[in-house]
């Protein structure tokens, strides 16, 4: 049976938490609106970059050994299952590819990915990036990531970008988009139908496509993250209100019990005189 003071303390702290989660929800609602607005033109970059791969039906030959996985997330938590879904997909892919005998390296965009993977799969981590999620991503960010990747010296044959694709305010889906190396694209037979392509143009295009795909996945990822955080904070505020209601009832019951006890003591004390 808790004392009145304990219940009062608890009630006060839960009320504060409710205020905080409500304000976090407002903030992420505003950030979500902005992210969704910026996502529309950004989608063009992504679909444009991937269109060549789809139209020319470029597929990596099965015997290629070196794989690269890029997991796109952010630094900040309290957004539901955003980070864990990316990490889970990454871990599954690592296991599948390692069992198939391929060499895998992982690039993590966002501190949370590094945190989730370092303990168990730390030796697969090639690079990580931080300060993601504080401000909306720009093409400059995607360029930095792409440049670091190209300068890292890891000559991958095939790769994929794993990100959370934004579907609607309440739903997102973890998706995977392929990236190919220069040799795979140059060696593909269907490329001969295109005019005026030489190795230099292809190399430029490959580098630019990498930056484009990263930009697209960053934009989608931030929008999904803000919508997930909005939902999570909304649920937290609702839970907090429920707890406040229940606690207020117990507080009143406890208060009445204390008063009744005091009355009984007074009355029984008076009767003893």
């Amino acid at each position, binding site marked *: 049976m808790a004392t009145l003071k304990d219940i009062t303390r608890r009630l006060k702290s839960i009320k504060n938490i409710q205020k905080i989660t409500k304000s976090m929800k407002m903030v992420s609602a505003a950030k979500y609106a902005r992210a969704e607005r910026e996502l529309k033109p950004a989608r063009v970059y992504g679909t444009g970059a991937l269109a060549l791969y789809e139209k020319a039906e470029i597929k990596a030959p099965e015997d290629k050994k070196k794989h690269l996985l890029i997991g796109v997330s952010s630094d900040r938590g309290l957004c539901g299952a955003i980070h864990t879904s990316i990490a889970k997909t990454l871990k599954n892919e690592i296991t599948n590819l390692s069992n198939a005998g391929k060499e895998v390296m992982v690039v993590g*965009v966002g501190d949370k990915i*590094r945190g989730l993977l*370092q303990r168990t799969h*730390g030796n697969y*981590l*090639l*690079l*990580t*990036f*931080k*300060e*993601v999620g*504080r*401000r909306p*991503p*720009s*093409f*400059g*960010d995607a*360029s*930095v*990531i*792409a*440049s*670091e990747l*190209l300068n890292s010296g890891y000559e991958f044959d095939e790769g994929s970008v794993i990100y959370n694709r934004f579907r609607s305010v309440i739903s997102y889906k973890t998706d995977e988009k392929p990236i190919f190396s*220069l*040799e795979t694209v*140059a*060696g593909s037979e269907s490329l*001969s139908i295109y005019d005026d*392509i*030489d*190795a*230099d143009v292809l*190399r*430029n295009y490959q*580098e*630019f496509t*990498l*930056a484009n795909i990263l930009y697209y996945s960053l934009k989608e990822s931030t929008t999904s993250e803000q919508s997930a955080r909005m939902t999570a904070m909304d649920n937290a505020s609702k839970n907090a209100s429920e707890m406040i209601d229940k606690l207020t009832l117990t507080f009143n019951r406890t208060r009445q019990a204390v008063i009744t006890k005091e009355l009984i003591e007074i009355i029984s004390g008076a009767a003893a005189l």
Partner: protein
Amino acid sequence: MSSAVVLPFPVALTLPGSGAAAMVAYWRQAGLSYIRYSQICAQVVRAAMKPQYKAEAERAAMATVKTVKPKKE
């Protein structure tokens, strides 16, 4: 497979099966990647903009991502 061999400092590259030689861009010869080249071009364009549009463009182009190299233990 592919007959395009990427030498450390290529001067002329050939596409598989075509036989025609192509000149490599001057910036590629100087060691820049396409991403770095397009970044420099964009910087120049932004510097040439009128002041009222320049501030907007500078803000939109800021890159805040930092690299963390994993420590080898």
